[in-house]
C-alpha cells in the first residue's frame, strides 16, 4: 500500500467508514435472512468493499452510478440511506422504491444511484446515456457503470465501450472481477487474459488494479473520474477482487477451486485496511471502534425501521406502470 500522493486522513478514514458500513451491513443481512425475518434473494458483495468505497470518495451526489444485483456495496458507498435500503429489501412502502423494486432494483436519485439492474451487462449502456445528457448539457457530472467479469462477455459491454469512446462520454466502466460469473471460472468463459486488455479494442485506457487495495483503487479511480470530468472520455477499470459468499445466498461453493475462498478470506480487505490505518497513524483503535459502533447502531435502527414499516397496498399494482393509471 505504498502509493505516491497519499489522500488526506479524512479521505482515508472515509474510505474505511464506507467499507465498514458495507461489511457490517452484509453481516447483518445474512443474519436477518438466515433468521427468516426477511425473504429476498441476496447477492452478497462481501469481499468487494474496497472498490466502490475507494472510488466514491471522488464522486459527489451530482455524479451518477448504474449498478447490478450485487451492488449493495456500490449503493452504500454512494450514499443510499441504510434504512431505505433495508425497507426496500423487506418490501416496505418506506423503501427506496416503495417496495416495488426489491434488492435487485434499488434506485435512489438523490444519492445518484440511477439504475440497478438484474440483467448482466445492462448497466453500461444506460450509464452512457446519463453521461450523454451531462455532456450535451455541459454539466461536469460523471457516470460510473459497475458490472462483473462475466458481464464483459455480453455484447452490450462492447457496444457501450465503443460508443463511449467515439463520443468521449464522461463515463467510467468499473469491472469488478471476482473470478466467477455464477459458477463459471473466469478462464473458462473469458478469452482475454485481463479484462482491461479489452479497452485496447476501443482505444481507451484500460487498467487492472488490485480492487482489494483501497489506496491503489483510490488512485486509479480518481484518475479515471478526472479524465471523464475533464472531457477526455471513458476509462475501463478492472478491479480484481473475490466474493466471500459465493454467487447468491445459499451458494454451496462446490465449483470453486480448493482453498481459494479461504485464502481470499484470509486477505479480507476490511481488517487489513483497518490494521494499516492504525499502524500508519491515520487512525486510532479507539476512533475506529467508535466509528464501527456508530455504524452498528445505524444498521440496527435501519433493520427495526424496515421491519416495522407497512407493506404496500395492493393498489400499487396499478401505480407507476405509466405516468397515469391505466385500468386493465
Amino acid at each position, binding site marked *: 500500500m505504498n502509493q505516491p500522493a497519499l489522500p488526506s486522513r479524512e479521505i482515508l478514514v472515509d474510505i474505511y467508514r464506507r467499507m465498514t458500513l458495507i461489511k457490517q451491513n452484509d453481516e447483518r443481512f445474512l443474519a436477518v435472512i438466515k433468521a427468516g425475518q426477511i425473504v429476498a434473494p441476496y447477492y452478497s458483495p462481501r469481499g468487494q468493499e474496497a472498490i466502490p468505497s475507494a472510488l466514491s470518495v471522488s464522486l459527489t451526489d451530482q455524479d451518477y452510478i448504474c449498478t447490478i444485483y450485487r451492488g449493495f456495496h456500490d449503493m452504500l458507498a454512494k450514499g443510499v440511506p441504510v434504512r431505505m435500503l433495508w425497507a426496500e429489501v423487506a418490501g416496505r412502502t418506506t423503501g427506496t422504491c416503495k417496495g416495488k*423494486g426489491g434488492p435487485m432494483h434499488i434506485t435512489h436519485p438523490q444519492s445518484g444511484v440511477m439504475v440497478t439492474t438484474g440483467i448482466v451487462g445492462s448497466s453500461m449502456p444506460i*450509464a452512457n446515456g446519463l453521461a450523454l445528457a451531462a455532456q450535451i448539457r455541459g454539466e461536469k457530472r460523471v457516470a460510473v457503470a459497475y458490472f462483473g467479469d462475466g458481464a464483459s462477455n455480453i455484447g452490450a459491454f462492447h457496444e457501450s465501450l465503443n460508443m463511449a469512446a467515439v463520443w468521449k462520454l464522461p463515463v467510467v466502466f468499473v469491472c469488478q472481477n471476482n473470478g466467477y460469473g455464477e459458477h463459471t471460472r473466469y478462464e473458462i468463459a473469458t478469452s482475454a487474459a485481463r479484462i482491461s486488455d479489452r479497452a485496447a479494442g476501443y482505444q481507451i485506457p484500460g487498467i487492472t488494479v488490485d480492487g482489494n487495495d483501497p489506496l491503489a483503487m483510490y488512485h486509479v479511480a480518481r484518475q479515471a473520474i478526472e479524465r471523464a470530468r475533464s472531457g477526455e472520455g471513458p476509462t475501463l477499470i478492472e478491479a480484481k477482487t473475490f466474493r466471500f459468499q459465493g454467487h447468491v445466498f445459499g451458494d454451496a461453493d462446490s465449483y470453486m477451486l480448493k482453498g481459494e475462498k479461504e485464502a481470499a478470506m484470509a486477505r479480507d480487505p476490511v481488517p487489513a485496511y483497518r490494521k494499516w490505518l492504525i499502524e500508519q497513524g491515520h487512525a486510532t483503535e479507539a476512533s475506529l471502534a467508535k466509528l464501527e459502533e456508530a455504524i452498528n447502531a445505524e444498521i440496527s435502527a435501519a433493520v427495526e425501521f424496515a421491519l416495522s414499516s407497512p407493506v404496500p397496498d395492493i393498489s400499487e399494482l396499478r401505480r407507476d406502470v405509466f405516468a397515469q393509471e391505466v385500468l386493465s
Partner: protein
Amino acid sequence: MNAAQAQTSKPLNTIQAVNLALDEAMRTDPNVILLGEDIADEQAGGIVGVTKGLSQKYGTSRVRSTPISEQAIIGAAIGAAIVGMRPVAEIMLMNFTAVAMDMIVNHAAKLRFMSGGQTHVPITIRTMTGAGFGTGGQHADYLEAWFAHTPGIKVVAPSSPADAYGLMLACIFDDDPCLFIENMPTYWNPGPAPQPGVRIPLGRANVLRPGTDVTVVSYSRTVADCVAVAEKLSKEGVSAEVLDLRTISPLDMDTVLQSVAKTRRAVIVHEAVKAFGVGAEIAANINEHLFGQLKAPVGRVGAYFSPVPFAKVLETEFVPTPARIEAALRATLK
C-alpha cells in the same frame, strides 16, 4: 408563421410529417435529441430521409448518428431520459428491435415501476416496418404484440401522415416510453396536412368512418384497406364503422366497446400475424363485455402464421388483402 408551419398547409407524406414533428419538437424543447444509425445529414438524414435537415438545423450534438449498436442506442436514450431529456431513438427496422429487447422491455418499460416512480423514461423509439418491398423474413415484421404485452411501454401506430405528425409530437412529450411504428411501403403516400403543433392524444382511438352494421378495428397500414372495403360495401347498403386505434397500448377498449355495443358485430384487422396478436386481445375483451349481444363471432384478419415471404405472389397474399378483409366482413354480416 414559420417556414415549417407554412409547409404544413399543403398535402404531405409520412416522411415529411414525421420530419416536421421532430423539427417542431426540437425547436420547442432543447431536451429533445435524436439518436440513430445514419440519421445526421452527413449520413444523408436517414435511410429514407426522415431526419433530413435536422442535424444541419440543430447540430450533431442533438442529432447523432450512432454506431450500429441497438442496445447502446436504446441504453443511451434511457439514461438521458432518466435525467430529464426526451430522446427520440430510431431503430432502423422493427426487426432490429429484437437486438435491443432487453433495453426496451427490461429497462425502458419497467424502470418507473421498479423505482417506485422515482425515475421514468420518456423516450420515443421510432421504427419502420411492413411487407411489400420484397425484403423477406427479417426486415418487415409487425411485432407490436411483443411490446403491447409489456406493461409500461406505449405502442403507437399511425395510419396517415397527419396522424403520424400529431402522434409523434404526443409521444415525444409523453412521460412514458413510446414505441412509434411507421409503415414503410406507404411512407411516400400523400395525405392531408396536420395542424401545426397539435398533438393527438395517446390511448384514444379515432372513429374514422361512422357506421351502424359492423365495427372494423384496425391500425397502421391496414386502416386504408378497411376504409376502402367499407366504402365498397356501402354501395350494397352495409354501414361499416371503421375505428383506427392509433395507440395499441394502452388500448382504448371504451371506444371499441361503445361501437360494438351499437353494431353488435366486429372484425379486427392488422398486418401482424393473426395468431396471438392484438386482434386476439381485442376479441377477448369484446367477448368478456358484450357476450350475448353479439350477432356473430368476432372476426379477425391478420397475416399468415409464417415469416414474411419473399416471392411477390406469396408476399402479396401474406398480408391481409382487401379481399380477405371483405370476406371477413361478409362472414360477420351473414
